[in-house]
């Protein structure tokens, strides 16, 4: 019985059908990537698992018990942490306050808070320097580091990460992936959504490729790396489009 089982879920935003019968699973300590073009439903998947969105149909099991429809603020305590797209920090709160917020579900355990805080500061030394700075004054990279650190403060069993690389220089992204790998080795399962396909596949165990709300490809990372149609689903089949295709009748 795997850590997370998502079973044929449908998700709708008003008239838009975001997910159509999507299923996937994440084992203990595994690191899984969710790939696919924009609007393929990657973000909707993470939001449904973390409780921000309630699925219209289907079920989600975490540690075997059903969590579909459980609101986000009750799920965090049970070990699911979600770092949403766009980092979603508390702009007017300081770095340390953001981190303390991440520790909210275990706030009673003071000792654990200082332990976690030091652990995060070790992972991201720059945060220690900017400790009292207000979040919105941080650079893009630093904000992403704070996002990851805050999500890890509740020492989750499953960490959902949405577009870690958004607007960051490749070197910073590589650094973040290293840290994710280390956290994963410490026992936290990771389900991450990522644009940079090579970066994701080189760090993850398995991957799913989504298109238009469905899983079109799945497998372990190594076999997928140089799979031709993976690139096609992103950039469009490069050899087909010779000339800009005018409407058929025009000729």
């Amino acid at each position, binding site marked *: 019985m795997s850590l997370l089982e998502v079973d044929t879920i449908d998700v709708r935003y*008003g*008239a*838009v059908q975001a997910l159509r019968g999507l299923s996937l699973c994440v084992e203990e300590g595994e690191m899984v990537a969710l790939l696919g*073009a*924009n*609007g393929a439903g990657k973000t909707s998947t993470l939001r449904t698992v973390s409780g921000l969105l309630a699925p219209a149909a289907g079920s989600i099991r975490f540690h075997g018990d059903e969590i579909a429809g459980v609101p986000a603020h009750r799920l965090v305590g049970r070990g699911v942490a979600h770092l949403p797209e766009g980092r979603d920090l508390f702009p007017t709160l300081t770095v340390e306050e953001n981190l303390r917020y991440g520790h909210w579900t275990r706030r009673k355990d003071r000792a654990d808070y200082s332990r976690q805080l030091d652990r995060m500061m070790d992972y991201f030394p*720059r945060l220690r320097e900017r400790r009292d700075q207000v979040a*919105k*004054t941080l*650079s*893009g*990279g*630093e904000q992403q580091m704070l996002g990851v650190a805050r999500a890890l403060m509740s020492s989750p069993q499953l960490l959902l990460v949405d*577009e870690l*690389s*958004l*607007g960051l*220089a*490749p*070197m*910073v*992204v*590589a*650094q973040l992936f290293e840290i994710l790998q280390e956290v994963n080795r410490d026992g936290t399962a990771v389900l991450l959504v*990522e*644009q*940079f*396909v*090579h*970066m*994701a596949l*080189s760090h993850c165990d398995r991957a799913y490729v989504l298109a*238009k709300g469905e899983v079109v490809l799945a497998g372990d990372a190594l076999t997928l790396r140089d799979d031709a149609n993976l*690139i096609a689903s*992103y*950039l*469009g*089949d*490069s050899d087909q*489009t*010779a*000339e*800009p*295709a*005018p*409407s058929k*009748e*025009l000729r």
Partner: protein
Amino acid sequence: MSADRPKRPVGLFLGALALLSFPWLPFVSFSILGSANLAAYYALVAISLVVLTGWVGQISLGHAGIVGVGAYVTGHVVNGWGVTFPVNLLWAGAAGAFVAAVLGLVAVRVRGLYLAVATLIFSWTAVEFLFRQDWVTHNSSISVAAFGEPGTFPYFDFTSRRTFFYAAWATVVAAAYLMANLRDSKSGRAFFAVRGSEVAAASMGISVVRTKLTAFAVSGALAGMAGNLLIVRDQVVSPDAFKVEVSLFFLAIAVVGGLSSLGGAVAAAILFASLSELFFRLEFLSGWLEVVPPLLLTAVLLLYRGGLAAIPAALRRRFGGPYDAVAGRLLQLGTQVRQSLAARLPARASSETPAEGTGARVGLVGGLWERLPEPVRQLTSKLPGLGGRTPVAIGRLDLAGVLAGMQATAPDESHESAAEGSTTGDEVVAGWQSLRLPRRELPAAREDRRPLIEVTGVTVRFGGLVAANDVSLTVREHEIVGLIGPNGAGKTTTFNSIAGLNVPAAGQVRIFDQDVTQWSVDERARLGVGRTFQAIQLLPQLSVFDNLLVATHLQNPSGFVAHLFVGTSTLRAERAAREQVRRVARLLELEDQLDRIVADLPFGVLRMVELARALVSGAPLIMLDEPASGLDSTETERLASILRVVRDLGVTLLLIEHDVQMVTSVSDYMYVLDYGTLLAEGTPAVVQRDPKVIAAYLGEAPAEDQDSLAGVGA
């Protein structure tokens, strides 16, 4: 607002008929007549709130103050210059309009809750300061309350309730009639557009500033006239009739009425006036006067938000048959009346399309604006928000004309399009799929074609973050330019600086060879730039037809006054506008969706309506903000082919889109952005195979050229 010709509010004729006989009905006692007069006073204030809060979304918590100004100005005018009723009504209206317009100037700068506080402060100051100054209130009682001399004709003594009844309800009926005309006209649509979304309204050339000022002025005029009715009815007013609590009471009436419907406002006014009749009649209510109005407001707010205006619809839902029979019968009667009236309008319903290239004359204030001497305009343009450059419009693209012309020359053997399109009128416009379009002779080299958009060295910073760094691109005539790049690459930032949503820190944006870097969204729209939005910005409660009709704003030459009194010019402009909408709808095969309400349409159709709206505005240049997001693969393919047809009709398109596959299939030329800088440009085939682009999209495989990583800081 159904799809046929602008519907005269037939209901008002019927209503007037009922009101004329009211004072003579047997059961109407003297006190009920008194309540009916009170109802007229409340109705006028409620209508003024419907216009301001219902239609334009500007909440006012200070309308009693404006009513007070109307009352005291009437007092001065009657005692000072002996001006009698119908004329002093206009004085009061003018005073109300002026005060509201000044208040509107603040409203233009602030929004939502700030505005509510501004109006609350106004009414608090009016009561505590304005209505305590002797020079304002010494005329609080007027001696002359009649028109003409006793014994001679015409002589109206307004102290008599029956005479006042006719005067008051005539004013209300006239106000409702004019407001209904306004609502069904271009200005009304501008009101709803501004309430729906200011940025979408601006993108259709509607000046949000002038629309709001017009709404405040109209609403203030009606409120001022209500003040006039009060002092003419009572001949004396005291400040406690205009305190803060009374403003909240007026808002309660409008909310109970359903806030957006004129009929609802009148119905709520009648309901609240009947309360005062019940207070007079029923002994057990004494002591509870203060509790009843807030109870009514709470009930409507929490239990039945549609208010009285929603009752007829609810009745139809519940009773169906019998209700419809009665309503149907009345409707027939009404349409007969309207037909006879319409018959005597000039017959020559000419079908020529509106003159090309007419500058946009927007609303009464707009009209005045044009006639202001140049230096004054320069001066006022320094005023925050008021200044408006009237751009030299390149000339609107008359899509309908192009289509009509083309159709005439198309070879006649294309039978299926002729048969299928012969719905109305003479010329036939086919759906896009069956269109025969002549080959467009374009200069071979792209450089020879006229550049419509030239972006040079644009840099945009948000706080520390450089979103766009020295970006330069050009969009040339009759082509589709695609702008792509991975997330956070600065696509949207660049797009917005072209659309006018942000002012770049450095660099220049030129459109139609004019430097528009500092121009506002509606100024660029007037120049000839249309756009669609990634998050649908349609008006959910309106039908598709009305949503599209809003976009004919710039091509409709009729002015505000014409909208009020519905002259032949308005009717002709409306007919032309509706024709334009029907043609574009037919082009995009949206005809059978025209009467459906936007809120219940599937996402794919909404995308088409957004595109149609941009086309209806006649803009020769349209910017598409992620048009394919949310569409499935078949819908995306259909959109791509439609865009190609639109391009071949002579519209130039600039689009940003995540679906790289779709963009490469439709664009003539592409630009790729990454980290806010231009990574590559060229035809789709070139761009697709450019290794830098693939790397940007797929992310560097860690093995390859390590050094490129090291150079980049955190």
